[in-house]
């Protein structure tokens, strides 16, 4: 059985930042990630970030990921386990991890769950045809492996991810037939949306996918307009010849380990699904278990990094590690988080968080 002061599950922006902050205070950290690289979702993000300078706007996700990953891997206080999947958390506080087909048991004093999210999918006829992907999968194919998913894409969902992935497809030389969105307005920031519109891609709001068709793979899709009650308007169907349908309909938090640990959970649609109740220190209802990033509620990388920082500081502090400016550090992060979540863009997140913060 391996002992560690703080074990962090997930090496995305939240987990990496948590590790760096905890180690900076003097804690000894074990970081576990199932991938053979660190960085989580960020390594797929070749675009410049939105947000203010302080929050690393205009930097590319992949550069932020690399910077954080290098800092973590060269930190002597942090033991990194890659290609290592956390399989379970047991009542006696033991974490079961599989690495290289071997079982490792870890007994941490504190646990930070920063496992990120999983893509949601949609129900429509023939949704099992080859050629139907989640946006995350398309982004991995195109940006990580340099593989085109097909020649002509229908993007379902006009949030930031759908719109950004559409733009990246265009850059990769793939045609985007249309972006459809069931809501009356797009969810994406205008900077990104105007780029794809300028490139000639139509965005249809109040539209959904009615069916996919094709014999052995996607040959096309039928889209349909929705009325004020989100019901399909008969006769408004349009057929699109596409060989790829890309679903970008949101993520849900990956929380199995928190459930297993007995953390109190709550269904909060604003945060993407079931999320753990937590206090201001990001500690769940099970003492010593913290959460940060998309696992705590689907948001974005800047918020994930700030939450990771807070969880890392708080977990280390609870073990007795301290710094003269510890409270100042925390206040600064909390203020930045409040700033990030202010205004109309953060309205949904604020509403969601109000339901789970105790």
């Amino acid at each position: 059985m391996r002992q560690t002061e703080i074990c962090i599950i997930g090496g995305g922006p939240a987990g990496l930042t948590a590790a760096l902050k905890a180690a900076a205070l003097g804690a000894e950290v074990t970081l576990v990630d199932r991938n053979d690289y660190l960085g989580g979702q960020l390594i797929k993000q070749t675009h410049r970030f939105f947000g203010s300078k302080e929050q690393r706007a205009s930097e590319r996700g992949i550069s932020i990921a690399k910077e954080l990953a290098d800092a973590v891997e060269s930190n002597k206080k942090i033991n990194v386990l890659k290609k290592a999947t956390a399989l379970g958390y047991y009542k006696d506080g033991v974490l079961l991890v599989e690495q290289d087909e071997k079982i490792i048991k870890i007994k941490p004093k504190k646990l930070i769950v920063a496992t990120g999210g999983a893509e949601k999918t949609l129900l429509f006829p023939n949704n099992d045809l080859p050629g139907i992907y989640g946006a995350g999968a398309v982004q991995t194919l195109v940006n990580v492996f340099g593989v085109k998913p097909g020649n002509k894409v229908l993007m379902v969902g006009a949030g930031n991810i759908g719109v950004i992935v559409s733009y990246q497809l265009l850059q990769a030389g793939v045609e985007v037939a249309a972006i459809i969105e069931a809501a009356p307005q797009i969810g994406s920031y205008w900077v990104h949306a105007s780029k794809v519109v300028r490139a000639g891609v139509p965005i249809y709001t109040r539209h959904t996918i009615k069916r996919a068709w094709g014999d052995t793979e996607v040959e096309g899709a039928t889209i349909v307009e929705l009325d004020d009650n989100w019901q399909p308007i008969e006769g408004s169907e349009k057929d699109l010849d596409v060989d790829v349908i890309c679903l970008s309909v949101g993520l849900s938090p990956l929380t199995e380990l928190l459930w297993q640990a007995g953390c109190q959970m709550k269904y909060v649609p604003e945060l993407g699904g079931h999320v753990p109740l937590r206090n201001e220190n990001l500690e769940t209802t099970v003492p010593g278990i913290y959460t940060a990033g998309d696992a705590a509620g689907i948001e974005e990388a800047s918020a994930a990094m700030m939450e990771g920082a807070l969880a890392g500081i708080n977990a280390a502090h609870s073990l007795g590690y301290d710094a003269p400016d510890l409270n100042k550090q925390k206040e600064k992060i909390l203020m930045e988080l409040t700033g990030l979540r202010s205004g109309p863009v953060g309205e949904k997140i604020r509403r969601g968080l109000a339901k789970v913060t105790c």
Partner: protein
Amino acid sequence: MSDCRCKDKDVNIVCRCEDITLEEIREYIKNGVTDLEQLKRLLRVGMGPCQGRTCIPLIVREIAAYAGKPVEEIPLTTFRPPTVPVKLGVLAAGGEKDD
């Protein structure tokens, strides 16, 4: 446009790991199986390689719609390790030396 034959064929896959359709789920719910735990035991939904990450949210929505209840009132099943499929040999080999 395409004259593909399956344009009018409807297959709505809810659980792609275990190949279960929306029609099957609705049939069970209509016959009184409105409990996720029972659906799981009868149809294996949520027991495939993804461990229900894809299908459970969809099935919960179906149950909620049928019952006329909000999604948060539908009980989920117990989350048990492992989070992902793992080979029996790996588990059987046990942990490290001093375990």
